[in-house]
């Protein structure tokens, strides 16, 4: 079925959409009267939905990052008081010092917001939506209506999560993993009361949003590629988004099952996760449950989740490194193969988060082996990125710098993963600051670098303007240096045994020597946070006042999205969708700087 026919083959649910994007077959741009509501709010244009995901993600990122500033103040300056904290947090920071309950709530929400609302919805939601139709050559997603629902379910989940910040007993505070029994018993902590229910409902709706989006991404990539766009001619971004969506479709439902059982434990009087518990000196009647069961269900999503976060960043970086070093990507098929290997292994390693929960050491050995195997495809990718830029004619833009920065942080964070993947070393290192350092560098900072690179690179496609380069360079250097200054020292703290999740270390003699280091880290956190606000300013300023594009292909890239007009309408291409004749990486070939995918292969062209 052709692209156009598929677009027109709407089911009854998509009735209202049908006339929205049928401009292709008769070859002229349609000038459909769009209202403000249908264009900006309930938009079914994948580009507008991408912008909605991006801006919602940015708002969440500011909130989530600000929370980390607040709890870093506590860790860095445990004795100081900040009266302004009381004015924004009220009784949660009486006398200008945040309470232990507030501290745990902030840590929990920081993790939840950044993992799910920023680096899953904000990253994959933005770039899958923007790039899949544009780079495979489709008018829109397979089902624009479901795509719109995907955003609005995300919005609903956001509203619920946001509202949990304002309830009297505060938001969920049992960590972003929400392990029972703490999260199952409202009497165990005030963060396990209504805030926990809102958290669970918000996350359940988030799963629906993710499912609607992922099903769309998969079917669009498989079904709607333009003529000539075989799977092996797709840019690596698309391969990355494809496997990200596959991960989401297969792992989020398991989390949903875990949440359903948890909700019953909270309100149905069941004992799925509960057994032999005392709360405040009272014996609970629950028998026969297993808290470890929840951990299995959670980490069956939780581990693929980190690849849901990092794969889109990998795809974006692969694309930008090839474009900005004017060289074909090194080892295209190896890149695709390693993404596939990572996707497969992602489902087989979840128990490495549970080495010290009483897991059978014999079983642990298999999870160690499978975990360490991930180093192979990861290393292949890293070497391919380095060989791609090796002796390249690198154009230093904020996007290319962030991509190189991604490779740097991915290496330094990935190497510590090899430590933590060993169940023996993990006995010493689990639940210490070492773990914090590891996953923040390899997945937090790296994914953010991929996201920043993508925003700087595709901003011209999103808004028809450039972002300010100078501000971009300042943003990059302070963020890169700052990220290392923040997280590098945490490795040492962790190796010395300093545990994570503590509100106050000052009574703990052995870790007093890290007082100064903690203060230093918190100081850098504030600087880096301020720099991110500079980026936010640059982003919004450039939407309205940025330098305008004069050419549709500002980076001289080969991929299809740059064959559309500077401000493409709904339907992307005014005429026919272009046909694809070559792969996406014909840079510096036969004396030509770049050859777009739409150029037919001439007979005297050299093979690559």
């Amino acid at each position, binding site marked *: 079925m052709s692209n156009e026919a598929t677009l027109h083959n709407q089911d009854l649910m998509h009735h209202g959409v049908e006339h929205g994007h049928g401009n292709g077959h008769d070859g002229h741009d349609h000038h459909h009267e769009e209202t403000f509501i249908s264009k900006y709010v309930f938009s079914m244009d994948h580009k507008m939905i991408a912008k909605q995901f991006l801006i919602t993600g940015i708002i969440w990122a500011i909130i989530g990052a600000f929370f980390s500033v607040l709890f870093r103040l506590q860790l860095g300056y445990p004795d100081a008081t900040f009266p302004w904290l009381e004015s924004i947090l009220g009784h949660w920071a009486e006398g200008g010092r945040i309470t232990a309950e507030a501290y745990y709530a902030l840590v929990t929400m920081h993790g939840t917001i950044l993992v799910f609302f920023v680096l899953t919805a904000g990253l994959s939601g933005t770039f899958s939506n923007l790039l899949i139709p544009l780079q495979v050559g489709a008018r829109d997603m397979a089902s624009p209506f479901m795509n719109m629902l995907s955003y609005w379910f995300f919005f609903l989940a956001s509203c619920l999560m946001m509202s949990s910040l304002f309830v009297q007993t505060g938001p969920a505070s049992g960590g972003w993993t929400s392990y029972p029994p703490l999260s199952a018993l409202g009497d165990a902590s005030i963060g396990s009361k209504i805030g926990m229910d809102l958290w669970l409902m918000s996350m359940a709706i988030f799963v629906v949003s993710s499912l609607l989006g992922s099903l769309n991404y998969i079917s669009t990539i498989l079904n709607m590629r333009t003529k000539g*766009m075989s799977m092996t001619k797709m840019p690596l971004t698309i391969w990355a988004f494809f496997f990200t969506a596959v991960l989401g479709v297969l792992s989020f439902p398991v989390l949903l099952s875990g949440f359903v059982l948890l909700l019953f434990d909270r309100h149905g009087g069941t004992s799925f996760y509960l057994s032999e518990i005392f709360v405040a000196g009272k014996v609970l009647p629950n028998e*026969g449950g297993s808290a470890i069961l929840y951990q299995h269900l959670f980490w069956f999503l939780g581990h693929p989740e980190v690849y849901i976060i990092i794969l889109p960043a990998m795809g974006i970086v692969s694309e930008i490194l090839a474009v900005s070093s004017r060289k074909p990507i090194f080892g295209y098929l190896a890149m695709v193969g390693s993404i596939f290997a990572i996707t497969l292994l992602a489902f087989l390693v979840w128990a490495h988060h549970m080495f010290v929960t009483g897991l059978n050491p014999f079983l642990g050995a298999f999870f160690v082996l499978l975990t360490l195997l991930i180093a192979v495809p990861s290393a292949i990718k890293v070497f391919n990125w380095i060989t791609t830029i090796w002796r390249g004619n690198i154009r230093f833009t904020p996007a290319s710098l962030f991509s190189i920065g991604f490779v740097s942080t991915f290496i330094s964070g990935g190497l510590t993963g090899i430590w933590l993947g060993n169940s023996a070393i993990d006995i010493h290192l689990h639940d210490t600051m070492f773990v914090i350092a590891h996953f923040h560098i390899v997945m937090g900072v790296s994914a953010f670098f991929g996201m920043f690179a993508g925003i700087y690179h595709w901003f011209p496609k999103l808004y028809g303007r450039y972002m300010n380069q100078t501000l971009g360079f300042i943003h990059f250097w302070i963020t890169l240096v700052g990220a290392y200054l923040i997280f590098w020292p945490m490795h040492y703290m962790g190796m010395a045994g300093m545990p994570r999740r503590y509100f106050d270390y000052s009574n703990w003699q052995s870790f007093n020597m890290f007082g100064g280091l903690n203060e230093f880290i918190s100081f850098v956190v504030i600087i880096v946070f301020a720099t991110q606000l500079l980026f936010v300013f640059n982003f919004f300023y450039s939407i309205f006042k940025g330098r305008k594009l004069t050419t549709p292909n500002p980076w001289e890239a080969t991929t299809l999205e740059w064959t559309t007009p500077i401000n493409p309408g709904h339907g992307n291409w005014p005429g026919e969708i272009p046909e694809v004749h070559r792969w996406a990486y014909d840079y510096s070939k036969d004396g030509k700087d770049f050859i777009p995918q739409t150029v037919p292969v001439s007979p005297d062209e050299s093979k690559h």
Partner: protein
Amino acid sequence: MDNAVTAKKKWWSGGHSPFSVSYGKLMMWYFLISDAFTFGALLISYGTQRFMAQAWPDPNVVFHSFPLMGHANLPLVFVSLMTFILIMSSVTMVLAVHAGHHMDQKATARWLILTIIGGIMFLSCQAWEWTHLHEVGAWWGRNPFPNHDGSAPLSTNFTDFFFTITGFHGLHVTSGVVLNIIVLINVLKGTYQHRGHYEMVEKVGLYWHFVDLVWVFVFTCFYLL
């Protein structure tokens, strides 16, 4: 390198669906895989908890009642009837899809109506069974059934999982019935006749068969094992 790959597999070279299916059917298949993981997670959780338990109630004793039969001991007869009804509704669904392929509006509607009736009958049976179990004291968090070795129940795992998983399945049957009714209305309105194909019937058919298939596993896990 690229040319060699594409020359062999023309189906994948873009411009058409590699599986020659619409995106809608493709999405339905992927959704079903996803949903299979949801049920898989629940059933595996059930399996591990049961495996770890010392003892478990005997389904032949728990499920021995039949409506209007008083205290007659009819182990698993009622649930067999339920299963039969659901499987028959799958048969009528197949016939509805078949009639759709032949563009037979009346026959499609007829078979769809029978499928919907089958679904509603199954749900009614489930409602009766739940009510009956509730009357004898079973519910989430309450397990009145002694284990097969006669010992008193140590935990409520049996009823917790039973109500959660059969309830989750019942929810799927309910949404299936709703989808079938929506599609039936469209069949009667002639929407698909006008569109030239009955693919929507096929898509809800896929969902319906999936829900049936899940029941086979739920049935096995709770009533037979």
